C-alpha cells in the first residue's frame, strides 16, 4: 500500500521533529539553495520584463477564474471537437471511479503515470491498487518516493529530502520488487542513478497500453493540454500508449493559445530555474496516426469551488505549481515538506490545503500558522499570489471558529522552526518590511489580525538586504 498523509501530526509537532532531523535539513538546504541561485540568474536575465510577465500572468489567471464557468465549457467543447472525451468529477471518489472504469474498459491491469499533483491529491494510486490495477510512477523523484514507500515533500522534486546515498539504497533494495533490479555495483553518482531508472522503466514504457497524466495548462480556445518535464518519461507516457487519461484541476485553464507566450516564460524559469525545461509536450484531442487514439480529460473540482467562493482565498487558484515559494521559504527549508501533512507543502500548501479540505482537523487549522509572514513567497511567485494576505485571512477564520486550539499553541510551530521566540520576532519584523514593499498587504478585515499585535517600526534596510545578511550569517 502506498503511504498516505492521513494521521500525520499537526504542524507544530511535525515541525519540531523535522527540525531535529539534521540529514533532512542538510539535503533540503543544499537543494533549495541550488535552485534559488539558478532561478535568480534566469529571472534577472529578463530584466524589467520579468515583472511585466508576472503582472500579465496574474491578470490572465485572475480573469480566467472570474469567468471560469465560461472557460470550462469552452475547453470541453474544444477537446470534444478534437476527438477527446471530457468527464467531470466533483470530488476525489468520483474522479477515482471514472479513471478506474476507463482503465478497466481497456482490459489492462497496469498503467504508467506522469507526475501529477492532482492524482496525488485524490490518492489515485491507492484507489487503483484496491481495484487490482498497478500504477507505476515514472518521474525519477516519484519513482524514488514510490519505491521507498515514502511521501512526496516538494511539488517539483518530491524526493528533495533525500540525498544521493539514500536514493542508491532505495534503488538497490526495492527496484527488483517492481521490475528490473538495480545493478548490484550501483554507485551514488547521480548519472548512475538516472541510468538505473532509465533501464528499470524502459521495458515498461515500451509495453504499456494506458497512461495517466496531469497537465500544467489546459487551453480553452484550442483544447490543448501541456505537460512540462525534464526526463522524457512524460513524452513516453503521452506518446506510446493507446489510451491516455489526463486528470486536470478546473483551475488549470488559460483562455487562449497565445496566453502561453507568458506562461512558457514564467513557469520554467520559476520552477527548475532554467530558460526552458528539456521537454514540453502539447496535444489537442487525438491526432490520427500519432500518439494515443483514445483520450480522456477528467476535470476535477474536489474543493476548488470552495476556494473560488472565498474572494480573498481565491487567488490561491492562480498557482501554476512552480514551487518557487517552497524553495525560498525559511520555514520550509527548516522543516521540509512532510511537516505540512499534505500533498501541497510549503507556503502554497499552507494556504491551499486548508481551503481545499476545510479547517475541521487539527492538522489543517494549524497550516495557516506554518509561516512567519516574511513575504518572500509573494516576491518570488510568478503569478503574484499574496500568500501572507491569505494566511492572515485564514488565521482570522480559525480564530473566529469555535473551539479552536489557542493561537499560541499554533504559533508554537513557528517557534519550533526558529529555535526561540527571539528568532521568530526577527522574522516577523521582516514581515513588517515586506508589507512596506507591498502596500496592498493586509487591507480591510485582514488588518484585524495584525492590529492586535505590535508591529515594530519598519527598519530602513531592504527586505533583500535583510535576507542576504540572514543567509550570510548562517
Amino acid at each position, binding site marked *: 500500500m502506498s503511504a498516505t498523509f492521513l494521521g500525520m501530526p499537526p504542524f507544530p509537532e511535525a515541525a519540531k521533529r523535522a527540525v531535529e532531523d539534521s540529514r533532512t535539513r542538510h539535503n533540503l538546504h543544499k537543494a533549495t539553495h541550488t535552485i534559488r541561485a539558478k532561478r535568480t540568474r534566469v529571472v534577472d536575465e529578463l*530584466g524589467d*520584463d520579468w515583472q511585466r510577465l508576472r503582472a500579465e500572468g496574474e491578470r490572465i489567471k485572475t*480573469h480566467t477564474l472570474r469567468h471560469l464557468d465560461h472557460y470550462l465549457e469552452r475547453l470541453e467543447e474544444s477537446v470534444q471537437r478534437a476527438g477527446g472525451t471530457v468527464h467531470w468529477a466533483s470530488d476525489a471518489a468520483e474522479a477515482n471511479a471514472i479513471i478506474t472504469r476507463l482503465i478497466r474498459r481497456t482490459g489492462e491491469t497496469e498503467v504508467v503515470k506522469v507526475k501529477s499533483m492532482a492524482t496525488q491529491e485524490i490518492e489515485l494510486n491507492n484507489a487503483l491498487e484496491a481495484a487490482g490495477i498497478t500504477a507505476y510512477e515514472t518521474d525519477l523523484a516519484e519513482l524514488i518516493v514510490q519505491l521507498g514507500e515514502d511521501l512526496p515533500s516538494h511539488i517539483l522534486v518530491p524526493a528533495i529530502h533525500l540525498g544521493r546515498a539514500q536514493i542508491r539504497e532505495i534503488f538497490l533494495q526495492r527496484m527488483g520488487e517492481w521490475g528490473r533490479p538495480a545493478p548490484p555495483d550501483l554507485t551514488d553518482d547521480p548519472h548512475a542513478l538516472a541510468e538505473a531508472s532509465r533501464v528499470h522503466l524502459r521495458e515498461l514504457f515500451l509495453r504499456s497500453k494506458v497512461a495517466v497524466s496531469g497537465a500544467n495548462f489546459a487551453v480553452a480556445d484550442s483544447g490543448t493540454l501541456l505537460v512540462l518535464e*525534464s526526463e522524457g518519461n512524460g513524452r513516453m507516457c503521452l506518446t506510446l500508449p493507446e489510451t491516455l487519461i489526463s486528470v486536470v484541476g478546473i483551475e488549470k485553464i488559460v*483562455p487562449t493559445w497565445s496566453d502561453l507566450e507568458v506562461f512558457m516564460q514564467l513557469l520554467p524559469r520559476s520552477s527548475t530555474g532554467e530558460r526552458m525545461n528539456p*521537454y514540453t509536450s502539447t496535444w489537442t484531442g487525438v491526432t490520427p496516426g500519432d500518439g494515443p487514439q483514445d483520450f480522456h480529460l477528467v476535470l476535477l473540482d474536489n474543493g476548488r469551488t470552495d476556494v473560488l467562493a472565498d474572494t480573498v482565498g481565491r487567488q490561491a487558484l492562480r498557482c501554476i505549481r512552480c514551487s518557487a515559494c517552497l524553495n525560498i521559504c525559511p520555514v520550509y527549508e527548516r522543516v521540509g515538506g512532510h511537516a505540512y501533512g499534505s500533498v501541497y507543502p510549503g507556503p502554497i500548501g499552507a494556504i491551499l490545503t486548508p481551503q481545499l479540505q476545510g479547517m475541521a482537523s487539527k492538522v489543517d487549522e494549524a497550516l495557516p500558522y506554518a509561516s512567519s509572514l516574511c513575504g518572500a513567497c509573494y516576491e518570488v511567485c510568478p503569478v503574484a499570489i499574496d500568500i501572507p494576505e491569505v494566511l492572515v485571512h485564514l488565521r482570522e477564520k480559525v480564530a473566529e471558529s469555535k473551539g479552536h486550539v489557542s493561537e499560541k499553541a499554533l504559533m508554537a510551530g513557528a517557534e519550533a522552526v526558529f529555535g526561540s521566540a527571539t528568532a521568530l520576532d526577527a522574522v516577523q519584523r521582516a514581515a513588517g518590511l515586506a508589507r512596506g514593499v507591498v502596500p496592498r498587504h493586509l487591507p480591510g478585515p485582514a488588518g484585524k489580525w495584525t492590529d492586535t499585535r505590535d508591529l515594530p517600526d519598519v527598519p530602513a534596510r531592504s527586505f533583500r538586504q535583510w535576507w542576504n545578511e540572514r543567509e550570510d550569517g548562517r
Partner: protein
Amino acid sequence: MTNGSRERVLARVRAALADVPADEPVERRPSERPYAESHDAGPTLDVLVERLVDYNALVRRVAPDRVADEVAAALERCGARRILVPAGLPEEWLSRTSVERVVDSPEDPRDVAELDSADGVVTACTVAVAETGTIVLDGGPDQGRRALSLVPDHHLCVVRADQVVDSVPQAVRRLDPLRPLTWVSGPSATVDIEMIRVAGVHGPRTLEVVLLDPDA
C-alpha cells in the same frame, strides 16, 4: 453520473462567482500584451548556438549546401548503422550517407521494437527559439510521429535559419496548437537528485543540431 457531476460543478462555479458583476466582459482586448517581444540577447543564430551548447547539445553551424556532408559526418561519428527517417525528410539530406534507413509515416508506422532497435533518428523542425535554446517539432512530414524523436537514443535535427525566432512569444505565434508539439531544449535530463541537471534519462541522450546558416 458524469452528466450530473458536470452540472453540479458548473453550478458550484457559478455560485462561487456571485461577486463578479454580470456585465464584466469575458473577452479581453487583444492589445493588452504589455511584455517584451524579445530580450535583445544578441544575434539570433549566435544566441541559439550558445544556449544549445549550454544544455550540452552538439551543434554544427554550416552553409546550407553542406547539409548532406554534415549529416553523413554526424552519423559516422556516433557509429549509427540503422536510422529512423520520417517519410517526408528531404532526400538530399541523406544523399552522402550509406547507413540503413527505416522509413516511418503515420500511414505506415514501424512498431515500437523497430523504433527501439534504431541507433538514431534524423528530423527537421518547425520552429527554434534562440533565447531559450529550444527546438519545436510539430509532427510535419519531415519530422514524423512523436515516437520517432523519442525512442532512439540519438536525435539529429536539422534547423534552417529562417525557422529560428528570438523569443518564446514569437514562437508561440508561429505554432499551430492543433498539431501535437514537442518542445526540446537540450537532451533528456533530470534535476531530481540534489537539484543537479544530469543529462540522459528516458528521451534521447544525445541531441545534435545541424544549423543551416546562409552566412556561414
